[in-house]
């Protein structure tokens, strides 16, 4: 039966060779046109950041820059060297790093533990506990902004990197739990049962049996959390302005600041600097990035 299908399929393929050729040209044409649409803004950002303002005024969006001129990048990163009103990204870039590293670590750790318990140490009502946590993936954060602002104030950590670490850790937990739970569900529980009979404890089982096979899901979780937290603007702009602001907030302030002359080249260099860490992660680990997206991209 299989062979019959294959051979008649081959005949069919021969017959429609010419229609196929036309169709393939059309296919590639459409795919390339869309590729250009997606590439266009990145291209414009890069070439604009390499031009002088004079070149920008004379040319168009697509004009190739006259040379590799990284001046705007230096201004975007380190400023022009005069005191007040000189905003640049360097300090805020470090704020973001100081915020992302602990927040990713804590939320991943808590999520791994929760996923482990929910699948391998099941208790009565654990499904409801999972649902209880899962709902946290979906809430619009506007519904928690006001009490959060007050809580951070009471704790004395509003407008600080520590406050943002707390916020991102807490609201990351539903996602990290979801990732680890779905991953550990697929690992046979027989291994865990056998280890329990041999007298291995809760932590020993985690570190000896589950952790060694968890690398892919840890990578997915770290990438997901890193991208979400690095790219966050709502929490950053609400809970932290001034000096403790993360990079996305600083970028927005820089672009909106109404100085006398708008320097689009510096704006574009700033936008690239703010986007480069997540872009690098995407290019290097695209497979894991997409896996995270398809299983957890409910967060806006």
């Amino acid at each position, binding site marked *: 039966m299989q062979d019959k299908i294959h051979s008649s399929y081959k005949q069919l393929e021969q017959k429609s060779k010419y229609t196929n050729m036309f169709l393939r040209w059309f296919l590639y044409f459409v795919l390339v046109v869309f590729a250009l649409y997606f590439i266009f803004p990145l291209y414009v950002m890069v070439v604009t950041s390499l031009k002088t303002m004079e070149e920008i005024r004379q040319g168009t969006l697509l004009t190739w820059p006259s040379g590799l001129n990284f001046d705007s990048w230096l201004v975007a990163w380190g400023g022009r060297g005069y005191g007040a009103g000189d905003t640049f990204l360097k300090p805020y870039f470090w704020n973001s790093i100081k915020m992302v590293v602990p927040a990713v670590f804590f939320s991943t750790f808590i999520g791994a533990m929760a996923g482990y318990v929910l699948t391998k140490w099941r208790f009565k009502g654990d499904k409801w506990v999972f649902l209880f946590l899962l709902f946290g993936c979906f809430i619009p954060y506007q519904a928690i902004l006001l009490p959060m602002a007050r809580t951070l104030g009471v704790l004395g950590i509003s407008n600080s990197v520590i406050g943002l670490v707390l916020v991102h850790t807490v609201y990351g937990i539903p996602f990290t739990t979801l990732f680890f739970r779905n991953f550990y569900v697929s690992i046979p529980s027989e291994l865990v049962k056998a280890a329990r009979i041999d007298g291995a404890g809760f932590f020993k089982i985690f570190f000896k049996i589950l952790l060694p096979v968890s690398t892919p899901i840890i990578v997915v979780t770290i990438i997901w959390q890193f991208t979400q937290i690095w790219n966050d603007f*709502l929490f950053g702009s609400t809970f932290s302005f001034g000096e403790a602001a993360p990079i996305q907030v600083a970028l927005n302030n820089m672009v909106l600041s109404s100085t006398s002359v708008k320097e689009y080249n510096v704006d574009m260099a700033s936008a690239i600097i703010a986007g480069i860490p997540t872009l690098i992660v995407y290019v290097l680990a695209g497979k894991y990035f997409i896996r995270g997206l398809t299983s957890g*991209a409910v967060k806006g």
Partner: protein
Amino acid sequence: MLKWLEKNLPKIVMAPAVGLIGWFVYGFVLWTLYISFTNSKILPKYELWGVGQYVKLWGSRKWLIAVDNLLIFTALFLIFCVVIGIILAIFLDQKIRAEGVLRTIYLYPMALSFIVTGTAWKWILNPTLGIQKMFIDWGFENFTFDWLVNREMAIYTIVIAGVWQSAGFVMALFLAGLRSVEDEIVKAAKIDGANLFTVYWKILLPMMRPVFFTSFVILVHISIKSYDLIVALTQGGPGISTTMPALYMTQTAFHKSQVGLSAASAMMMFMAVAAVIIPYLYSELRRENAR
């Protein structure tokens, strides 16, 4: 004591997650709900005031504009993302050369923040030096493209940037869905005389119903929450013409110090999301239980 600890260790380890979510998600939402029934201005007041804030909210012109914009944005965002996503997924599924490269290109905007996206598109769409100038310099002297500063059209610039950011994601979802379909089904249909178009339209796309559902939920969710993109692209302007609920909420809370009113708007957003998410969660759970 030790024995008790050992027995309950899993629950103790679970406790931080449950406690944090219980407090910071459920507790906070309830607090916001309560405050929406009070007459809180700069500081929260705790005497109940009834539904006054909701009456005020639905009588506010700005809120109505925000809801209107949300509906326009959601509809267009959904249609364009899904159509472009499906076209790209189907075309990429035809044993294309350089598929990996193309896929990478279609999806990279998902790695960027909405602030970066907004900044880039703001520059591209600005009437003085952006696309408009490009076409004029190419010889189309009467070409105008001023949507960004045009009250009527500014909302569509947000659609353009939003679709650019998210269409690749829909493509990824559908490509994964199409790849999970057995090859034999397609081959059998072709032998029966179905052409490629019929195969997709009659057989494969109807099989993709769960993917449609997932994309719908995720895209609607993104659009109800959209905030960053508007801040970066238009700040809600020109005037208040591109205000959306999320922007309305933060502006009312933190610039106008109308805490009660902004809590009411936040609860409206919460309900909108719940209306989409709860059926989704329900169906997902049913599918999992059926397995």
